[in-house]
């Protein structure tokens, strides 16, 4: 029997979708008290991304930190012209602690881009996104895409206090109308956010709703979306092992056609229809 010829170039892709590559760290700095921003020099083949997609990161093992499985992380920014890939993260566990040790010039094994991202409908002129804390990072590429397509974007950015508000500046740079709400100013309650959005809906200024992560935000937006017939999408998180759909680890429940169905966050998501997602 003929032995198959092998292409063993690292990350050789069968159909050109997903690659395992060694990226190089350009910077990895604290951006405020709580978050770090990692900037990687990455090959062009992994920078053909969609907003809302993620990478599966092989966090470095050291004497102090021994993460084993890869860690999924949503893309904060992809810049094919500059050859850069950005991640915004909060140090929370073994994986992000290990990531925080990365220094300029280090190599970092990444796999992606993975999953299905946010979709912007052809006739959606006015987009509204709402997210909190590091969740805003997931929505940053959506702002970039909205600007590229010439759509209007309103970004409601929530945080504990104004000094830890993420990405408001980035959204402004992308031409978005930015509304900040914080716990310390007493403006981040769901009722208040709901009123802000309802007001814009009343003025016919919302064609689609975008969010990620939070349960309370999901429930509030589902109510508004259903009431006014406005479509929406949510990026969800779930613990993952393989990140590409093989292991069935990252399933969540969804409501579809009157039935409960299970889907893989890594493969069918991480972005799902707002009304099909289920609070947890």
């Amino acid at each position, binding site marked *: 029997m003929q032995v*198959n010829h092998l292409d063993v170039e690292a990350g050789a*892709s069968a159909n050109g979708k997903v690659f395992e590559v060694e990226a190089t760290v350009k910077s990895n700095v604290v951006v405020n008290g709580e978050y770090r921003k990692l900037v990687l020099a990455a090959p062009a083949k992994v920078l053909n991304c969609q907003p809302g997609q993620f990478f599966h990161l092989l966090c470095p093992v050291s004497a102090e930190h021994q993460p*084993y499985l*890869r860690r999924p992380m949503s893309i904060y920014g992809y810049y094919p012209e500059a050859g850069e890939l950005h991640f915004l993260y909060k140090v929370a566990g073994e994986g992000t602690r290990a990531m925080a040790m990365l220094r300029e010039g280090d190599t970092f094994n990444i796999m992606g881009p993975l999953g299905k991202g946010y979709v912007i409908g052809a006739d959606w002129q006015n987009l509204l996104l709402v997210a909190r804390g590091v969740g805003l990072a997931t929505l940053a590429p959506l702002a970039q895409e909205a600007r590229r397509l010439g759509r209007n974007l309103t970004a409601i950015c929530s945080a504990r206090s104004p000094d830890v508000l993420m990405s408001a500046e980035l959204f402004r740079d992308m031409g978005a109308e930015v509304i900040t709400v914080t716990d310390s100013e007493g403006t981040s309650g769901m009722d208040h956010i709901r009123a802000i959005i309802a007001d814009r809906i009343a003025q016919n200024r919302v064609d689609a709703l975008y969010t990620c992560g939070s349960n309370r935000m999901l429930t509030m937006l589902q109510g508004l979306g259903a009431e006014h017939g406005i479509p929406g999408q949510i990026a969800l998180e779930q613990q993952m092992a*393989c990140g590409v759909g093989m292991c069935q*680890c990252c399933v969540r429940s969804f409501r579809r056609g009157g039935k409960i169905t299970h889907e893989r966050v890594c493969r069918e998501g991480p972005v799902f229809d707002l009304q099909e997602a289920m609070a947890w």
Partner: protein
Amino acid sequence: MVNLTTRIGNLTLANPIMPASGTFSEDLADIIDLGVLGAHVTKTVTREKRGGNPTPRVCEVRGSMLNSIGIPSKGIDHFIQNVIPFYHRYDVPLVVSISAHSADEFARLCEEISVPGVSAIEVNISCPNIEEDGKAFAMRPSSAHAVMKKLRGASDLPLWAKLSPNTGETTEVALATQEAGADALVVSNTLLSMAIDIHTRKPKLGNLMGGLSGPALKPIALRMAYQCAKSVDIPVIGCGGISTIEDVIEYLIAGATAVQVGTATFINPTTMVRLIDDLRHFLSDQNIANVSDLIGTVRDADAADAVVFMEAAP
């Protein structure tokens, strides 16, 4: 040019590297060319639709992982209509992993899954048997023999029995499975384990316990593969903790005719492609012409049988 081909009964594989069930699917084709693998082994399918276990389904321990996925399955009809046709595009043997909670249901599934396009059936007898108080079929020689006998009667395709490390009767189970008609043994499945979060005091898996896989399992599965290869005449396929070429070579020397790579693919999805290339280089560097020249060459001639087949550390 070295010869990587290996034979599992009447099947010839282009090379001895294949995925372990549950760590492989069509989705991996997004990242590697599945056409280079020695065989394709699908995730275990059951007759009926199953939802699987509560989350979290996976957790990591130092340098390895635990899983309790629970065999979610879209059922046999979906599998025959959607999964098997996907693999038609490859000239690689397709091995379908199946499981059931009773011997009769197992045999029925074995018969129904014996369709064109399937080269062999991996019978996952490491899962709990509801007729034996939830003990896995492969834990005892008697239950392994009984289910294997029924499976043998249900299909003419090669049957690979996937054994469990959760037994104290490794060679007895292997011999019983061979006697009942298995064409090969896959050694082994995951080892029942547990992890607890010390802050919340909750088990880290939604199902409390799960199977250990990854490098921590390798010495255990290697020992079992060696004992099985020593005791049976049918081929043994090594499985457990393989991530480097040294791991592959070690299993081959222990007596494995081929190996399955599982958890390592989660860490580096290109692992199997790299291992095939590394194997070619290893053989070439060592002036070994054929993979088969390595198989079972462990130098254990001085050891007594009592030592070879022991089930407890002295």
